[in-house]
């Protein structure tokens, strides 16, 4: 049996054992061990433990199909490739260094700097280095820009390579990166994306900020790969243009049909109300409005019946134009005055609003309803309907490009794009070899912002396009996307894990029936098997840093869940910040950035002291006190990571690229 096959057997046996032990423990907890009298802490705790069991199960499913691909298929000659170096405001020398390294990639290709900052000096530097330079075309003026996804979409329409390699401005590629990845596309024509690891050179050995994610860019991606669900992670990946363009066309059709349907519904009710208003007393006017409304209703029925949308909107727009010419003619001044009051409602804060953070055009259902309920004069009603029909048309004049290949529904365009590609039946590959060397954040605040952004993006995707219901995905793929999204809910579980020991030590309220032999005989096998699984999966490399951060960043995860929920469901701004690539300002320990963790640590210490006093001076239960104190020590060891992290100011001197070829596992699922 080959080494990797033997390893897979061991992993699977451990997964099964860990799950049996886990179910045994958690079922017992629910049935026999919850202290219902203290339900307010007992229920959150048992829910947190159930959450962790599901997390273990999803991790187990991921590891079940761990796929080690080994040597890639050879890259055939003659494939056309564009290399995109994306930048917004990173220092020009940093961008240029990456672009020059990209130019030196051995496989024939063209290199482009995609400068969203449109800096003339950047353009000049690119020209001097013989590197292509692209900025947004004029069609983007005044349209939603969609951040990095928009930058890539713009470049897709100005280039024509069959494949594209996407690199962040600070990810310096290896000359062999295309030789090692292009072969996958030739070997399987359904492959849409090949992702390679992100590896950071400016990270100290102890990695206090947990920047390297070798468990993710390793076993987790390899496990997802086994389910044909390897993620696209935004950089160091090669994509097939045909797949992206198909995604764009399919997305265009979906956007147009739903947008037009909505606009026609609103148009119908606006016109209906206007026809009933007292100002439409003139029978001819009323008849015209009624006719137009019938037209809107008919158009909506035609779309529902499957008539091509372009035909329907063309006809409808003609009718509205004719009506507005005849009715509005001669009353232009009146109309202008009335429109002035309505203008803001139609555009700013109106039904078609642009989300400031992600540049996403949001069709605000509530504002559409408001518009539909408003008593508009017949003139204004027709004008409003005319604009509505224009705005949400098959030409998508609301967007810079009708076709948006790279998904724009989230601040993290990569995950959403990959999920849609998978839903269309495309395949993805994770190639486990470091082929680019990047820069990680060098201080705590920057790192926190970056993690917050990733988490927000992931939760946004979860809420906008639930992988459990998205059509076209296979069950394994659904679980792989769910696993990543699930891992970001850990912040809520952390609250229970931190609060429960404090409540016992300080107030003597035990959230469980007892910490007796019944508890240990169930809990210990679960705990040990879980750790053993991690150990085998990570192949001896430390997973501790990652375990620490998945709990210690609980304020970040909670904030991400809450803000993404408020954004998607309640339409609030996200407060997303672009990750700065270089450190900023003076280096003082970033205590303020981690005050919730420091406060939690202080509370734990105080509770431990009180608990010891209660044990000595009063007669608290020694068994429960000892177990809870061990628990506090564990919590402190986990949270303790923020102390060196907050003091960290990056490596003292610039490090040379490390001679690492393959990365090994450590860290949580936190891409």
């Amino acid at each position, binding site marked *: 049996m080959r080494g990797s096959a033997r390893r897979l057997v061991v992993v699977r046996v451990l997964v099964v054992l860990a799950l049996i032990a886990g179910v045994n423990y958690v079922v017992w907890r629910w049935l026999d061990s919850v202290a219902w009298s203290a339900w307010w802490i007992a229920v959150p705790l048992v829910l947190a433990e159930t959450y962790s069991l599901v997390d273990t199960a999803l991790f187990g499913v991921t590891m079940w199909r761990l796929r080690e691909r080994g040597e890639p298929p050879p890259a055939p000659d003659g494939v056309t490739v564009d290399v995109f170096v994306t930048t917004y405001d990173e220092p020009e020398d940093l961008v240029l260094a990456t672009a020059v390294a990209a130019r030196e990639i051995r496989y024939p290709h063209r290199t482009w700097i995609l400068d969203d900052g449109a800096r003339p000096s950047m353009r000049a530097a690119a020209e001097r280095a013989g590197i292509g330079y692209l900025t947004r075309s004029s069609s983007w003026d005044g349209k939603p820009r969609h951040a990095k996804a928009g930058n890539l979409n713009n470049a897709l329409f100005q280039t024509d390579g069959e494949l594209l390699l996407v690199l962040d401005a600070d990810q310096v590629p290896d000359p062999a990166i295309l030789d090692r990845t292009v072969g996958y596309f030739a070997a399987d024509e359904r492959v849409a994306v090949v992702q390679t690891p992100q590896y950071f050179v400016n990270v100290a050995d102890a990695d206090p900020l947990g920047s390297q994610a070798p468990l993710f860019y390793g076993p987790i991606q390899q496990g997802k790969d086994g389910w044909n669900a390897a993620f696209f992670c935004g950089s160091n990946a090669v994509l097939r243009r*045909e797949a992206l363009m198909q995604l764009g066309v399919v997305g265009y*059709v979906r956007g147009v*049909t739903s947008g037009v349907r909505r606009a026609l519904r609103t148009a119908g009710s606006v016109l209906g109300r206007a026809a009933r208003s007292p100002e439409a007393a003139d029978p001819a006017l009323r008849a015209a409005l009624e006719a137009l409304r019938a037209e809107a209703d008919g158009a909506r029925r035609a779309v529902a019946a499957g008539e*091509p949308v*372009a*035909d329907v909107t063309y006809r409808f727009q003609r009718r509205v134009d004719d009506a507005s010419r005849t009715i509005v003619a001669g009353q232009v001044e009146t109309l202008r005055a009335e429109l002035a009051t309505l203008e803001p409602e139609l555009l700013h804060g109106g039904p078609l609003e642009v989300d400031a953070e992600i540049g996403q055009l949001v069709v605000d259902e509530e504002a559409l309803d408001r518009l539909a309920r408003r008593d508009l004069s017949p003139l204004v009603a027709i004008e409003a309907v005319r604009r509505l029909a224009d705005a949400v048309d098959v030409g998508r*004049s609301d967007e810079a490009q*009708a076709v948006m290949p790279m998904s724009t529904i989230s601040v993290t365009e990569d995950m959403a794009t990959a999920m849609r590609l998978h839903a269309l039946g495309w395949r993805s590959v994770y190639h486990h070899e470091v082929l680019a060397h990047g820069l990680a954040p060098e201080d705590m605040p920057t790192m926190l912002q970056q993690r917050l952004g990733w988490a927000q993006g992931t939760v946004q995707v979860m809420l906008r396009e639930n992988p459990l219901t998205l059509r076209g995905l296979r069950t394994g793929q659904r679980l792989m996307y769910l696993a990543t999204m699930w891992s970001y809910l850990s912040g809520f579980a952390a609250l229970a894990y931190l609060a429960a020991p404090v409540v016992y030590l300080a107030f003597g309220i035990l959230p469980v029936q007892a910490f007796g032999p019944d508890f240990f005989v169930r809990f210990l096998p679960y705990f040990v098997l879980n750790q053993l699984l991690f150990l085998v999966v990570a192949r001896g490399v430390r997973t501790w840093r990652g375990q620490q951060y998945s709990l210690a960043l609980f304020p970040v995860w909670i904030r991400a869940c809450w803000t993404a929920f408020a954004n998607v469901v309640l339409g609030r701004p996200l407060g997303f910040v672009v990750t700065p690539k270089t450190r900023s300002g003076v280096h003082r320990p970033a205590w303020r950035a981690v005050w919730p963790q420091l406060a939690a640590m202080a509370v734990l210490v105080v509770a431990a002291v009180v608990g010891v006093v209660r044990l000595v001076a009063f007669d608290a239960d020694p068994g429960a006190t000892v177990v809870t104190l061990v628990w506090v020590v564990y919590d402190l060891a986990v949270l303790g990571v923020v102390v060196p992290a907050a003091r960290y100011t990056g490596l003292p001197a610039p490090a040379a690229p490390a001679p690492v070829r393959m990365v090994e596992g450590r860290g949580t699922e936190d891409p």
Partner: protein
Amino acid sequence: MRLDVEPLDGTGAIIAPVGRLTLTTAAQLREAVDDLVANGRARLVVDLGRLEFVDSSGLGALVAGLRSARAAGGDLRLANASPQVATVLRLTNLDRVLRVHEDAASALADG
């Protein structure tokens, strides 16, 4: 790919791409449409009869053409698709937006 353009009355034109409309030739079609629209010809029919193959970039160019024609108050319609082209339109659902007419004449009849 070759593009045969046949002007019609004052404001229309029939565009017939011959060969393969793909990622390398999509820009050519986009530019041709933009030129026509800029010269006041916004009622366009794309005759797909001699098109051997179209990929998603090609479809993207058709959508882009539809957009510029509509923005100029005209329209872009499709006619005469071969089975391969019709299949691609169906797979991407683009036939939910754009009707493929029998021939250029019926495409031009105002709807």
